């Protein structure tokens, strides 16, 4: 909608990785809707605060619903949407700062509920919107405006983190390959449970990692990312953890739990098992009669 909207005043910098991600998201939700014969309005994008979250305003073509809330809280909002409307397809778009710093506390609980949503985490290793401060994925020793002597904290390994927290679908993508990324996002949406697609999405302005990811033999730079070998079994969690521990970033589907029961299904089953009786307000009041 915003392309047509002259008042919308946010623009990504030229070359920003997020351009690739927004195309991949459009492809994935468009394809999903077409395959299921479902309207695009059945999809809701829950966006975080950062350059990345603006993806929600930059969808082209038929528009999904969106909610662009506050910094770090995409997962709680998504939890409530699914509690209210399990039939909706909920997609989260958030940055590494939003999802892994201020919003970190919410990953574990959603993993344990196995909330049926798909999170696309756009990792540029930096706080873009606030102009280049260190994020949880910024490497040890990197100089930024908030780390003048080099970053003192170790970088976290997001893939390892998701796997340890028990996220039931963990994939890793890269913004320069939007087609493959769209495939992973769609697989995540089809997965019945909590899916995270962690995307390398470089920031051309504050942390340009294109070359580092791709490698440059002439300069002796080893590729910082590699495709997950075809013989990797995504059902094998230990193998996934081993992959995540690699120095370079594995790209592809790391892990998908086979017997994944999402939150809403657990509730339905528990209610059936315990034979919950629904009592009307009238009935409840009668129980309070003196």
């Amino acid at each position, binding site marked *: *909608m915003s392309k047509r909207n002259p*008042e919308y005043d946010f623009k990504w910098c030229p070359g920003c990785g997020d351009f690739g991600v927004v195309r991949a998201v459009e492809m994935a939700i468009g394809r999903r809707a077409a395959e299921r014969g479902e309207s695009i309005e059945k999809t809701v994008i829950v966006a975080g605060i950062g350059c990345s979250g603006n993806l929600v305003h930059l969808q082209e073509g038929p528009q999904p619903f969106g*909610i*662009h809330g506050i910094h770090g809280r995409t997962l709680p909002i998504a939890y409530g949407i699914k509690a209210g409307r399990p039939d909706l397809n909920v997609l989260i778009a958030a940055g590494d700062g939003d999802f892994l710093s201020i919003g970190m506390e919410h990953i574990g609980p959603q993993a344990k509920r196995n909330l049926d949503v798909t999170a696309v985490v756009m990792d540029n290793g930096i706080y873009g919107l606030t102009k280049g401060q260190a994020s949880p994925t910024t490497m040890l020793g990197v100089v930024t405006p908030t780390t003048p002597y080099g970053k003192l904290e170790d970088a976290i390994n997001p893939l390892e983190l998701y796997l340890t927290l028990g996220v039931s679908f963990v994939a890793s993508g890269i913004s320069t390959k939007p087609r493959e990324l769209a495939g992973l996002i769609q697989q995540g949406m089809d997965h019945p449970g909590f899916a995270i697609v962690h995307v390398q999405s470089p920031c051309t302005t504050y942390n340009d990692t294109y070359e580092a990811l791709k490698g440059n033999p002439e300069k002796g730079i080893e590729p910082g990312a590699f495709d997950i070998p075809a013989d990797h079994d995504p059902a094998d969690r230990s193998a996934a953890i081993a992959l995540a521990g690699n120095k370079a970033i594995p790209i592809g589907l790391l892990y998908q739990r086979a017997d994944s029961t999402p939150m809403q299904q657990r509730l339905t089953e528990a209610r059936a098992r315990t034979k919950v009786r629904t009592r009307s307000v009238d009935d409840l009041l009668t129980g309070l*009669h003196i």
Partner: protein
Amino acid sequence: MGSDLVVRFAGEGGQGQVTAAEGLAQAAAQVGYHVQTFATYPSQIEGGPTWAQTRVSTNTILTQGDQLDVLVALNRSAYETHIGELREGGVLIYNSKDFDEQLGGLSIGLDVDSLARATGNPRAANIIMIGAVAQLASMPADYFRQFIEARFRRGRANDDEIINGNIKALDVGFDAAAASGYRVNPLDPPPAIDRQRVLVKGNDFLSLGAIAAGLDIFIGYPISPATTILTFMEGNLNGEGKFVGQATSEIESIGAIVGAGYSGRKAMTSTAGPGLSLMGEGLGLAWMAEIPLVVCDVQRGGPATGLPTKTEQSDLLTALNPGHGDMRIPVIAPGSVEECWQAGIDAINWAERYQGPVILLTEMGVAERNEDVPRPDPSLVVAETRVVSDGSMGNKRYSGNGLAPFPVPGGPGAYVANASEHDEEGDTTHLPQVHVTQTERRFAKLKLLENGSYEAEHTESPIAIMPWGGSKGAARAAYQILRATGTELGWLYTMYLNPLPAALLEELRRKELVIVPELNYLGQFSGVLRGLGVNAHSITQYTGLPFKEQFLVERVREEIAARSGRLARV
């Protein structure tokens, strides 16, 4: 004048005080008396000074009672703390095990634990206390036999044994009090029961109201004194489309109900002060993005962890402006258990009507007390539902000068619900004119809520008393005493604190002086009223306990005298 009995059971937590107070209330309510209970205890699982009070009356009850007719002191420190509140002619029952000497005056020493053991039921100490109190107030033993029947007849094989044991305990208490020869003012027979009544606590009643108004989703995090709302919902809000969840923090609760409200459902959470602080940013999101939802804040003492199990009215300013920036959240504050039902309904309805967040502001003193109230008829509840977009507005969710139809995800009118300043379709913009228009739109919607009801009496008087929330009862009692003794004073009251009913605000602005009793240091509500052009002045108290009526009578007299002094000097 009706007749009245005020009893306090005081001791160490776990000695059965609350059970005794609630049992006495239940028994008295069963035969038609009006009852109210009040309990206060420290924030710990076992022990600590705990007391519970029951008032039984032939009249409607406004407060838990200033002075005690009977004090049951279960240990020495309880005796020392509370004896000063026993009125002249009142009777003390004390746990003789805890005292080396015989106490003089109108006192009865009972070793309740040994007596309970002797009946074969060591847990019957509270029944013995109830028996003794009943005898002192000349209440027929029959009332209590009925109560024991009703309470312990559960279809178990040993029901008879349990019932007989408890009746024995009741008789032990009766006999001990009879042997003393003491009596307090006898209670008149109960009034005829005019309609079906329920005995209920504030938290349960507002939960029922919210469910009756169509609540779908409840997500909350445990915190005293709001936890019982969460557990009530866990137990009772179920069925098709209903969802209740325990969140991992109040930050998660508020985010979740924003999501649920956005998804088209009626959503609510409950918390107390510490949680409300954490919800500030999320409430701003709901205000900004125009998401209907209800946050129930059960006030305790603050700030920070404060007084977790005491009562106070010190969250009003936070409720009105829980986060940064220009906003003013609608606030409904029930003044009694009876009002909790309607407050629960109205909170949900308001959220739907104006499409935004509403705070249901209650307090420990109302949340946890039992009151007998007329049974409401759920079939008479008018449940409002937001105006839903049919797609004819296109994507313009935030258009016009006020309310615009709400697009429900999955249906037509896809937009971005945006917490950043946004244009009509929800896209972020920083244009000055848009910020002006949208800010004014958000505030204009409050007009839809200005038709709340209020109470007004003796409006000819230039001075009025206007309590809010749980201070209503004590203020009402004080008002009645003051009027009966010739003080010229008007009465104004509403549970709709923001926005105030428009006609009430006019009334308030006409007053020379509006006296506001409130349980906080700052005088929060009178400050709000002054900001609205009302000459309001607070009577404050910040002890963690509710007002006593006599205290208010004296303070109002002082306020009026000070006022006339000021006028005389002019």
